[in-house]
């Protein structure tokens, strides 16, 4: 079989293996043909080539396939049937996204993902109102794209306040109130943190910002579709949405931009004026349809999934904390999304623990920061000790059905932690 694979590879036939044969991804070559594949529990990122996890809900794929196979028209072509049907699919997807967050379809702009949405929101709004308003507020635990956009704005002469978070990961509302200046244009605070799962008091923040006349942007990538969100109730002016966090395709997202009261922003991407002039470029119809389908499925299944995830998370927490000493849950235990569990194991180094748990694909820190060996900046912000920050592991799962896993994980962790404390 290896010789066969060699031949396939050399003649370039590997990518066209016949129907029914296994496809050899990099991981399979590493593991060897017969070894079973590890479980993918890292649902908050998407590093692996071959997603075992539930990253592409079959219902979403089913909605997308017709637009990859037959209905491949450009939604901006006004003159023929292919264009019209693509356009109507795109508008239907827009409505599905809007319904999930309680917005108007005209307030949704399709982008290439939450990173682009965050960039658009932060840089666009601040630059537009930059004549009179020169101040931005954000937190220290935001996603890298928000922090980096703020850094760029600082280099353009704006002043940025990075609010610290308390040790439970939540921001202090009074501190936020004091930080808002007359020349503040934007407050950007994410709804649910992607590393520790903490849920910020969005309703209060929105109310505060509205009363002070400041725009409120929230990175809702981890929250949309998982907890009920209504942008009108919560006084949100801009919200970033990511498709692949809710089982949609990778490479598409959306930005909610409020129309009443109108939020103006300077577009990042110039061109033919698509998406209300805010984001030029052909909208990828199949991806947008996937995003729409993912949103409507998330809306229908929100309650059911929340119950399931809470049950699984409780089970994980209970089993781990009852059998292993010195385990710390990072982040507030109540104000959180149950599906994101970030645990620190004292005396155990995170990366080595991950490598020891070779049967489970997790992540230490978050995908964006896991390339470097620095402890996570989010954990540092909540005041975790340096050594604990090094040893944190994040479990995030959603539709997980891995019942036999917990017993295996127990054995794995037990063995490893015992070994390490003997050093």
């Amino acid at each position, binding site marked *: 079989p290896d010789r066969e694979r060699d031949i396939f590879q050399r003649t370039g036939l590997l990518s066209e293996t016949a129907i029914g044969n296994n496809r050899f991804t990099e991981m399979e070559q590493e593991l060897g043909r017969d070894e079973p594949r590890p*479980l993918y529990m890292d649902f908050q990122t998407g590093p692996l080539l071959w997603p075992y996890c539930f990253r592409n809900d079959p*219902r979403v794929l*089913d909605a997308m396939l017709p637009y990859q196979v037959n209905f491949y028209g450009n939604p901006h072509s006004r003159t023929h049937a292919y264009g019209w049907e693509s356009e109507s699919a795109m508008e239907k997807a827009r409505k599905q996204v809007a319904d999930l967050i309680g917005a108007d379809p005209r307030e949704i702009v399709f982008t290439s993902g939450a990173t682009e949405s965050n960039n658009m929101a932060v840089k666009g709004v601040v630059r537009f109102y930059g004549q009179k308003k020169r101040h931005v507020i954000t937190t220290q635990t935001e996603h890298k794209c928000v922090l980096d956009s703020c850094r760029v704005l600082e280099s353009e002469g704006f002043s940025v306040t990075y609010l610290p978070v308390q040790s439970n990961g939540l921001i202090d509302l009074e501190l936020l109130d004091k930080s808002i200046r007359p020349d503040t244009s934007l407050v950007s605070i994410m709804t649910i943190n992607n590393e520790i799962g903490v849920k910020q008091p969005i309703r209060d923040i929105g109310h505060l910002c509205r009363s002070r006349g400041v725009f409120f942007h929230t990175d809702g990538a981890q929250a949309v579709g998982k907890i009920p969100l209504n942008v009108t109730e919560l006084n949100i002016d801009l919200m970033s949405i990511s498709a692949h966090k809710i089982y949609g395709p990778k490479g598409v997202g959306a930005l909610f931009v409020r129309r009443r009261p109108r939020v103006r922003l300077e577009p990042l991407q110039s061109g033919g004026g698509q998406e209300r002039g805010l984001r030029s470029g052909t909208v990828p119809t199949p991806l947008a349809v996937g995003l729409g389908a993912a949103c409507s499925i998330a809306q229908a299944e929100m309650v*059911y999934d929340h119950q399931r995830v809470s049950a699984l998370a409780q089970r994980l927490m209970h089993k781990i904390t009852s059998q292993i000493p010195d385990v710390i849950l990072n982040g507030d235990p109540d104000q959180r999304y149950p599906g994101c569990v970030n645990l620190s194991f004292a005396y155990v180094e995170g990366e080595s623990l991950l490598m020891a748990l070779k049967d489970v694909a997790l992540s230490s820190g978050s995908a964006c920061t896991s390339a470097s060996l620095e402890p996570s900046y989010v954990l540092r912000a909540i005041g975790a000790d340096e050594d604990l920050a090094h040893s944190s592991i994040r479990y995030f799962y959603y539709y997980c*059905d891995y019942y036999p896993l917990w017993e295996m994980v127990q054995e794995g962790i037990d063995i490893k932690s015992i070994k390490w404390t003997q050093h």
Partner: protein
Amino acid sequence: MAASSRSQAISLYKMLLRESRKFPSYNYRTYALRRVRDAFRENRTVQDPQLVHSLLEEGHQNLQLIQRQVTVGQLYKAQKLIVE
């Protein structure tokens, strides 16, 4: 009428479970089985004929979806997971 829609529901349930078992992917298979069971359990006491009819329609569409996705999954099979 009630008897026939009940028997329709039961046969739809069996067909859905039978199709769901064919998913090659562990995740999709277990999710589909669980979701189908829970959905039918939840709607067990529905009486309104219109609602019953629309739920059955939805069930049939989901059945077709599962059939299509099972086929796609079989075309692009991967190795088994460690839990299997």
